[in-house]
């Protein structure tokens, strides 16, 4: 237990630039992941996000091998995956099998690429489980740009996207270009996923892109409130996870996933109690 939780020297650590970078990265990721999460849930894209994360991992592994920035590799891998899922798999049934096929191939390829890489082992491990040490200032620059781009696009397309997600038949009838919005949203999710991979790791991207949205949906059906709550939960998990991981020096992903999961349980409980009140 004492290995998992400790606050020795946290004060000094907080003064270090790389730790501050880590908090900044976590905050940016929480903002963009939380904003997207309710739509990911509404569109039933959990598996797509997972598939995208595995392809971001493949891209990151390829980048390690050829010696370019892992963030760039992850972004390329995730966007390619997002486009493939968005374009090929418009129908729910078809989508799942397309994702499964691409995910399996990407993961296999990524493992092979990592095995060929002869650099530091922590770099390899970091891709799968995340590592705050991996966040340097060039990553921060990428994070800031991607966050701004994703949030700006989301602000413009949010309403038609919500319409197309919640009510596809009527949205099509009213002229919403659902065939364009679907790949566009997949790319937004891909960019966010790519940001999340170096921080929380490919395996646990779902903890910041699904859990906040799923948790928020349990307590509110107001789209704006759900988005704000999801952002809050994502920030709590990411910033809290980063803070708790400092002194033990362990990967943040476990802490992030645990906090997000607890938040989900609380939201379920609240939703349940409220549901009883409503039906009473």
């Amino acid at each position: 237990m004492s290995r998992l939780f400790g606050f020795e020297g946290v004060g000094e650590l907080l003064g270090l630039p790389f730790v501050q970078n880590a908090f900044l990265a976590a905050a940016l990721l929480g903002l963009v992941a939380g904003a997207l999460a309710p739509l990911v849930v509404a569109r039933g894209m959990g598996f797509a996000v997972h598939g995208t994360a595995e392809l971001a991992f493949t891209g990151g592994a390829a980048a390690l091998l050829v010696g370019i920035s892992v963030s760039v590799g992850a972004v390329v891998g995730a966007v390619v995956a997002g486009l493939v899922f968005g374009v090929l798999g418009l129908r729910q049934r078809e989508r799942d099998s397309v994702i499964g096929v691409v995910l399996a191939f990407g993961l296999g390829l990524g493992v092979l690429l990592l095995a060929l890489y002869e650099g530091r082992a922590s770099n390899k491990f970091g891709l799968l489980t995340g590592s705050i040490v991996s966040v340097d200032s060039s990553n921060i620059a990428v994070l800031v740009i991607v966050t701004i781009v994703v949030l700006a696009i989301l602000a413009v397309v949010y309403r038609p996207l919500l319409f197309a997600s919640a009510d596809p038949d009527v949205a099509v009838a009213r002229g919403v270009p659902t065939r364009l919005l679907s790949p566009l949203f997949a790319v937004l999710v891909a960019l966010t996923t790519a940001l999340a991979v170096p921080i929380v790791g490919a395996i646990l991207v779902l903890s910041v892109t699904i859990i906040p949205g799923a948790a928020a949906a349990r307590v509110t059906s107001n789209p704006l409130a759900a988005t704000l709550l999801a952002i809050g939960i994502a920030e709590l998990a990411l910033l809290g996870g980063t803070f708790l991981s400092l002194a033990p020096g362990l990967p943040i992903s476990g802490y992030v996933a645990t906090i997000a999961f607890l938040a989900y349980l609380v939201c379920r409980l609240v939703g349940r109690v409220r549901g009883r009140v409503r039906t009473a």
Partner: protein
Amino acid sequence: MTPTPPAGSAERSSAASSASSTTTAAVALRGARVAFGKRVLWEGLDLDVRPGEFLAVLGPNGSGKTTLLRVLLGLQQLDAGEVRIAGGPARRGAGGIGYIPQQKALAEDMPLRGADLVGLGLDGHRFGPGLRGRAERRRKVAAALEAVGATSYARSPVGRLSGGEQQRLRVAQALVGDPRVLLCDEPLLSLDLAHQRTVSRLIDERRRAADTAVVFVTHEINPVLPLVDRVLYLVGGRFRVGTPDEVMTSATLSALYRTDVEVVRVQGRLVVVGAEDQHVHHDALESVT
């Protein structure tokens, strides 16, 4: 039913003579034809729907009822002919049109309240953050909810509402934009009788109050029979337009189906005997190609 004009013939006189009515009709089709490959769904379709008129579109599956709606919504191009709706050519996202789909359960965890669903009918197709005119938007949504008697569940999650309640919201969603034409695609399907009556009454009130033309696709005319002004009956590329009394007869339907069909009136209901399939197999707008 559809006399084919001789090749190279001049503009059909009917189209020319009714040119003036085209400008006033809420929906106007002239010589409209849709075919998928060699299969012609319908051709030579001339149709005017007046403001305030209730047109029921009937026919067996695959006769092109939903395709007609897709044409009116600008989602499907005509192979020949012309289509105008709500004062302009049919095009994707055109204004002045309300659309009510068949009832389909909304996901229980959908982050959307009744009022949000209705609001999407007003501006859900528009891009941008939509920060301006929020007070006006709220007022319109509240009025639409009030008109269908859905105010009490305006703030409830849509996924938790009953099918009938959801369908009332659909009516409000279609009417909130103050449409000149209301397109309905089997809106009563899977509703119980009481809700069928409510939804058809709401549609009827609207067209009488605001002179909204109604194009109502259905496989079952009886729930709306008292409201129907005219019927468009489509069967295998042939069609007939007229009042229910003209079209819903044994002679007319036998000619359309090219087999013996008997239309019987039982306690004010029309029963069609002998027509092929009356099962319901509905295609969503998106999946029909």
